């Protein structure tokens, strides 16, 4: 008897045969087995007053629907300097997108929308980039050449990003290894997307043109945790200069991942380094799964070049399909059924947790053919087996064989041709393994197709700007004013005896200089200050989602007040909690809020004999520590700020 094909079982089985394991269970041996490889492109906005190639203010933002004018562009592929067309360029051209830019007078000018040639490169930005290049041990170029890097997705109205290399071949020191860096470039940021529906993509132009540096590493990270470590290191290094922007979206990284036999896939715009381990883990295994899919298909398809889908237009009545997505606007919607020869078991093949090969097709239909999701159903869906009848009908209409798979897709008439090409193309790619692409990240670690991965073919010299020479003296002058290396910072923090769990927070917000200042000017021990910051402030930050009025340097003022007033620093934590919520409150008032009473040391110590006596009278335990706790509990509030709690404790003689 012939066994019924069960997509659910197939999905589970393929997941197992790929050897997918949860990240928590994975060891270095597992990553070595699949040949995990990853590198980073870390973007960091620089804290300059103006944009990179025009005099618009940097860091002023507009809401999605706040604009003074709109304009439209269509992007066309052009040749690179070496005379080649770029793959992404051709894909974007296929999508026939109408790009709408929303311009606000406050944040963009005619340069931003490519109606005025560039003004000279922002020197402030160049200086910061040179400083960070030196810190990252890059070799600084002799002359900066501004290059155009094509982006046909419309995220930049010119169709290219002006970018230039400041240094090449650097390195960073991680815990267990050195990671090599390829280059550091200074470039303009792109637009922020408002929406992308059908053939219209809308952008706002506020972030456009803001100076950004990109640090690119070699693929030296051998497991997901190293990726995060590398990203954090670069982030902390950039921030240690105090000249870069912080806050949401100011640091973003593209993460390149591959497995052995796979290919470089770029996960775009990851804003949280904490996402990186899961994302890279899942992507490496997705590629590993695609390689197995390739093997499976090639067992039956001997000649990939001759493989082709067959398709047919149908009416809803014909296949008795009842889908809300189609009904919504069926005046222009066409429905096609497609046969994929030898693809049974492939569509429901595992690719990522909760995703299967069919998802790779539906994602491309959305991005390239511009058909909104849901845009298809297929014969191996997990959820509804009730449509069996439909598939029997579809198979007979297409003359399918047992070993084939089928799908039904729908979309506007104008997009059908591209859609059919997309389906054919993605299936053929499966016979080649892993397609070069950029993917969009989700918090759960999965990704979806975003664009075809561009190559070096999209570079072109910027004929609108002249090269900028960088003399040795200039570079030497920057070298003098640089902060210490991040790896030295780690050593410094350890030497201060600061708890390790505070390191990330302190480096992320570049707070070592603050700790050093409190130590030098106020004689506050670094350990105390670092704990105040790394525990109390971090806790407040996490709880309150960063209040705009509180600035981290207010901590210096607080500690300065405590010193001047002759208070015991232990009260700083309580005061900080009030200050954080009421940044405008003066310090004396904060003390009032806390019910603080100034009492002399002697007076507090004078209360001890009575309390000791009292404890002894009522003592229930023989443990002296209980006595200490009880007495300290009674005096804590009074003592805080007036006497060191440790000193008080030492005076308790039971």
């Amino acid at each position: 008897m012939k066994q019924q094909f069960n997509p659910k079982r197939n999905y589970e089985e393929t997941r197992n045969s790929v050897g997918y394991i949860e990240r928590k269970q994975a060891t270095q041996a597992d990553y070595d087995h699949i040949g995990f490889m990853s590198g980073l492109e870390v973007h960091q906005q620089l804290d300059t007053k103006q944009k990179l190639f025009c005099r618009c203010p940097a860091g002023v933002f507009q809401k999605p629907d706040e604009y003074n004018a709109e304009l439209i562009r269509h992007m066309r592929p052009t040749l690179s300097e070496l005379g080649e067309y770029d793959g992404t360029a051709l894909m974007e051209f296929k999508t026939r997108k109408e790009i709408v830019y929303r311009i606000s007078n406050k944040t963009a000018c005619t340069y931003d929308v490519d109606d005025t040639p560039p003004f000279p490169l922002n020197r402030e930005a160049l200086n910061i980039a040179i400083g960070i290049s030196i810190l990252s041990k890059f070799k600084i170029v002799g002359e900066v050449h501004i290059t155009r890097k094509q982006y046909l997705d419309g995220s930049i109205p010119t169709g290219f990003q002006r970018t230039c290399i400041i240094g090449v071949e650097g390195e960073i020191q991680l815990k267990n290894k050195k990671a090599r860096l390829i280059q550091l470039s200074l470039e303009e940021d792109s637009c922020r997307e408002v929406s992308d529906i059908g053939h219209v993509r809308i952008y706002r132009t506020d972030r456009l043109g803001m100076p950004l540096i990109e640090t690119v590493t070699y693929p030296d990270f051998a497991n997901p945790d190293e990726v995060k470590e590398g990203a954090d290191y670069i982030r902390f290094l950039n921030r240690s200069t105090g000249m870069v922007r912080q806050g949401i979206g100011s640091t973003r990284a593209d993460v390149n991942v591959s497995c052995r036999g796979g290919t470089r896939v770029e996960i775009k715009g990851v804003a949280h380094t904490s996402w990186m381990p899961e994302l890279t883990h899942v992507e490496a295994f997705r590629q590993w799964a695609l390689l197995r899919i390739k093997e499976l298909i090639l067992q039956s398809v001997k000649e990939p070049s001759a493989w082709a889908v067959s398709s047919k237009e149908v009416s809803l009545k014909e296949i008795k399909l009842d889908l809300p997505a189609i009904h919504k606007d069926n005046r222009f919607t066409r429905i096609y059924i497609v046969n994929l020869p030898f693809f049974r078991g492939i569509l429901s093949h595992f690719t990522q947790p909760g995703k299967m090969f069919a998802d790779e097709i539906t994602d491309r239909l959305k991005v390239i053919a511009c058909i909104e999701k849901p845009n298809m159903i297929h014969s191996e869906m997990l959820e509804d087996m009730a449509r069996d009848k439909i598939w029997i009908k579809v198979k007979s209409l297409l003359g399918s064989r047992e070993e084939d798979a089928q799908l039904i897709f729908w979309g506007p008439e104008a997009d059908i041709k591209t859609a059919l090409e997309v389906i054919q193309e993605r299936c053929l790619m499966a016979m080649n393994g892993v397609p070069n692409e950029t993917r969009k990240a989700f918090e759960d670690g999965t990704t979806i197709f975003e664009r075809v991965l561009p190559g070096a073919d999209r570079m072109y010299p910027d004929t609108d700007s002249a090269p900028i020479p960088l003399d040795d003296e200039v570079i030497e002058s920057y070298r003098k004013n640089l902060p210490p290396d991040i790896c030295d910072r780690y050593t410094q923090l350890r030497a201060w005896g600061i708890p390790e769990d505070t390191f990330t927070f302190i480096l992320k917000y570049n707070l070592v200089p603050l700790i050093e200042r409190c130590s030098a000017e106020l004689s506050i021990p670094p350990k105390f200050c670092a704990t105040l910051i790394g525990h109390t402030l971090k806790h407040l930050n996490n709880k309150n989602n960063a209040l705009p009025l509180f600035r981290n340097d207010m901590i210096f003022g607080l500690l300065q007040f405590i010193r001047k007033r002759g208070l015991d620093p232990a009260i700083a934590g309580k005061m900080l909690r009030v200050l954080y919520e009421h940044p405008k409150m003066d310090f004396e008032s904060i003390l009032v809020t806390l019910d603080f009473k100034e009492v002399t040391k002697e007076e507090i110590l004078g209360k001890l004999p009575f309390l000791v006596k009292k404890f002894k009278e009522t003592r229930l335990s023989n443990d002296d520590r209980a006595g200490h706790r009880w007495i300290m509990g009674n005096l804590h509030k009074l003592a805080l700020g007036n006497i060191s709690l440790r000193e008080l404790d030492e005076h308790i003689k039971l």
Partner: protein
Amino acid sequence: MSEDIFQGYKGHALEVMKKFNARVWAKVKVDTSRGVFEGSILPRAENTDDKHLVMKFFTGYNIGIDVDTITNITELGYKKAVYKIPEKEFPYSKGKPSVKLLGTGGTIASRLDYRTGAVIPAFSPGELYGAVPELADICNLTTEKIFAVFSENMGPEQYRKLAIAIGEEIEKGVQGIIIGHGTDTMHYTSAALTFMVQNSPIPIVLVGSQRSSDRPSSDAALNLMHAATAAGHGDIAEVMVCMFGPTSDEYGFLHRGTRVRKMHSSYRSTFRTIGDTPIATVSRKGVVPIKEEYNHRRTDRNVKITPVFEEKVAMIYYYTNMQPDMIDSLIDNGYKGIIIIGTGLGHVNKPLYPAIVRAREKGVAVYMTVQTLWGYVGMFVYDTGRDLMAKGVIPLENMLPEVAYIKLGWALGQTSDLEEVKKIMLTPINSDITPREPYNGYLIYQGGVPEVEDFIKKFHK
């Protein structure tokens, strides 16, 4: 001829290259005091210094290396780049109009020039089809490169050659002509062709681009499609400039060759009709006339070509305190015609009067236009104007200064009889002078006013 292996390098940089046996397009490892750099050596642009070597890093970026820091160069390989727009034969389809594209240079199609580091024009039907395949859906296109000069180098010789070439094409029976042209002086050429080519049975469309076609956001492709539509399918058989209407990729304007002017140094929508509305809009769907009256397309070949031009014509832009020697020097240098661009309604200061009288006595034709661009010369309004007319300055109504310059050259090319010249100058040709200015002819809105801001927000700029 042996190939230049040091393309663009000179002086000190050239010495260093020779010393280490380095050549352009070689893949090299360069040892320097700043570290080791690997990449391919690129040609150097001509007007740059002799202190740097340009390399393409493997990531595709270009970097410069200070030659003073170089201690050694090792060649690892060699690969020369060939920059070429893919050439495909332009397909012929029956039933589509035949359109001729005459090339003059400019940025309609261009490629990178390593000599100057700038872009230079590239042009052939095959290349154009490779870059803008949509053209084949519009017309059957053939091309001819008449000459290749930048816009600023266009002059009487080119006007005459173009006029003659247009006459020949019309004689052969093409259904429309496109002229690819740099934008800077396009309105001079459009005026010249209006005068030199009259009674054309077919559209003659000048087109260019404000962003070279080597960039994805270029307006070249859409402008070309619009021009091909206007030339092949449009009913307006006049000399026109076809460029972006708004700066958005939406539609183009067709401007009369005598009323158009470049009004912004870099905007895509830089060309505007002055003192009137454009003659039509054009999109890929077709031409939609705005003006009701225009010369309609015909099937005959009765065109009148008058390819003459007197080169001794000048244009002077009046400024306060201008001295009479400015005009005297023109007279002394044998100029036969002068267009004054006067202030306000057409005025100059008194010190110039004797020079103007002298010009008149020497048989130099002197005409007046206005710096305001919009509006008519009105020399009866003030004494100054009446004085000037009495001294022989002839007002040119609302003719644009550049058009007046071209027309005077063309008129003096036909006759030296100043009365005859005056007749030619004051007889309107294709709206170079219009009898009236419509209420919507002068529209320069100012930002900041709520209704204008509303308009800008609502309609694509």
